[in-house]
């Protein structure tokens, strides 16, 4: 369990939990920290979060499975979120999703064989003025065309490094 976060990180989180009047409110902060370190939250991650927060694993699990930006299954180094809500849909998000499937050779929900990208649909990213929008890892791309995608993926691979 300790391998998910360093002893120092665990101690820091535990200290914040004791200092907070309502420790449970930190559950997302702890889950974010674990996901930040490992990319996703494993069963061991749930148990670690529970231990830090003084909750049962079930209490943490019902939070973790509720939010779609907490990943309870392994994902690639970068998750590609393709917005499929109304504004992006009206400006071609279906073609964006199809092109990404072609370029990556995977279906939505899958991860590329090299472990680089996971492809997921997402609800509105709040970028309706720049539709269609795609988020890759921490980067938001607006006014994307199918022709842009090969270059965008190349840039993301370069940024990720070997």
């Amino acid at each position, binding site marked *: 369990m300790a391998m998910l976060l360093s002893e120092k990180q665990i101690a820091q989180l535990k200290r914040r939990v004791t200092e907070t009047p309502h420790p449970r409110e930190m559950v997302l902060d702890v889950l*974010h920290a674990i996901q930040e370190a490992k990319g996703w939250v494993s069963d061991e991650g749930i148990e670690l979060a529970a231990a830090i927060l003084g909750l049962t694993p079930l209490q943490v699990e019902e939070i973790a499975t509720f939010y779609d*930006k907490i990943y309870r299954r392994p994902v690639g180094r970068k998750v590609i979120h393709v917005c499929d809500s*109304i504004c992006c*849909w009206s400006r071609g998000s279906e073609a964006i999703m199809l092109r990404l499937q072609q370029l990556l050779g995977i279906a939505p929900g899958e991860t590329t064989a090299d472990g680089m990208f996971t492809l997921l649909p997402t609800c509105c990213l709040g970028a*309706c*003025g720049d539709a269609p929008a795609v988020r890759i890892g921490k980067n938001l791309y607006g006014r994307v065309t199918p022709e842009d995608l090969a270059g965008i993926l190349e840039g993301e691979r370069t940024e990720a490094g070997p």
Partner: protein
Amino acid sequence: MRICAPLLFKNRQPSRTVFLEGYRKTGGYQGLKKALRDMTPAAVRQEVKASALRGRGGAGFSTGLKWSFFPADEPGDKYLVCNGDEMEPGTFKDRQLLLADPHHLLEGILIACYALGIATAYIFLRDAYRDCAANLERAMAEARDAGLLGDNILGSGFNCEIHLHRSAGRYVCGEETALLNSLEGRRPNPRAKPPFPAVKGLFGKPTALNNIETLANVPHIITGGADWYRGLALTEQGAGTKLYGLAGHIETPGCVELPIGMPLGELIRDFGGGVWQQRSFKACLPGGASTPYLTAAHLDVALDYDPLEQLGTRLGTGGVVVFDDRTCMVAATLNLLRFFARESCGWCTPCRDGLPLVCWLLERIESGQGSHEHLAMLQEQLRHINGRSFCALALGAMGPVEGLLRHFTEEVVDHIRRGCCPLKN
């Protein structure tokens, strides 16, 4: 083209965020100063009530009235929660505000807390807005260093702390009681009302909940006064300005601040560049994904709460989403309903099971396999779901279905009669 001096967007510049120094240069924190120095909390509440400000998050409830239910003068822990979940498709105004000028929100929160006797505020921000979170963190640090946040603010004896909470993505968290559960670290199913949050909210304590844009209006009401603020609107009963979104099939999408009561057609033509690709206007969502459609017959309507309610729709978040004449309204409605069905928290049956059924019916009709029986079932679901769900999510979800059946029944029937989508074939 109408010219309007912006309030909330007065510091907005392309790709640049204004922080404390710039915010102060244009009169920033004068409202807080005035409230703390010259006004009692009750006087601030009275001014906001007189301003006729209505909630900008979607429901449009009177802010002054909401605050009047709050036990401001009673002792004990109380909270202000700023709803920054902004996950209604077509809505991206709060993000624009936080990218332009995060201190605007902080000043609004501080004045609201002073007015309501609150010492602790939370900003609940959606997961996708990482850039906004960074802006807010920097702004809070600046405010603390300048004596505008923390203990004894501006030497007035008023104390206030603001905490930023980042969510992890779910539409239902924008529902105020689901948001409270989320903040507390519980599964964000909505809570039963009553008790209302003003009585028993966050951690069981009285809690005031307001949207980002709503709170950002408060400093202007305090500096300019309620009468001036009301006079900014183009309608008699309206008040203030609005951050309107322009998205969908529009030539130049974006977010623009204009008076409440802007005529819909004028907004689309003058500030959105009209319908894209020289096509014609077919319909729009006037205020985000959950507001029933308007059609070309409604382009003269004033974008204000009451006039839109008279047309059977809502101003909602002010996020206008335009559809051109090539859009299939069955397909558009199906897209919207898939969003709501996916985002349902699953707590109550009408929403959890009803919305997927509505999606299935729309899929049948869109794919040419629909019958008149399916259309009747769609009308039936409208009656079954509306008013019977635990929270407003399902009610909002049925808004587009209601609009579809009200304005585009002929198009739906055409799908059934031809056995295919008339706009695709």
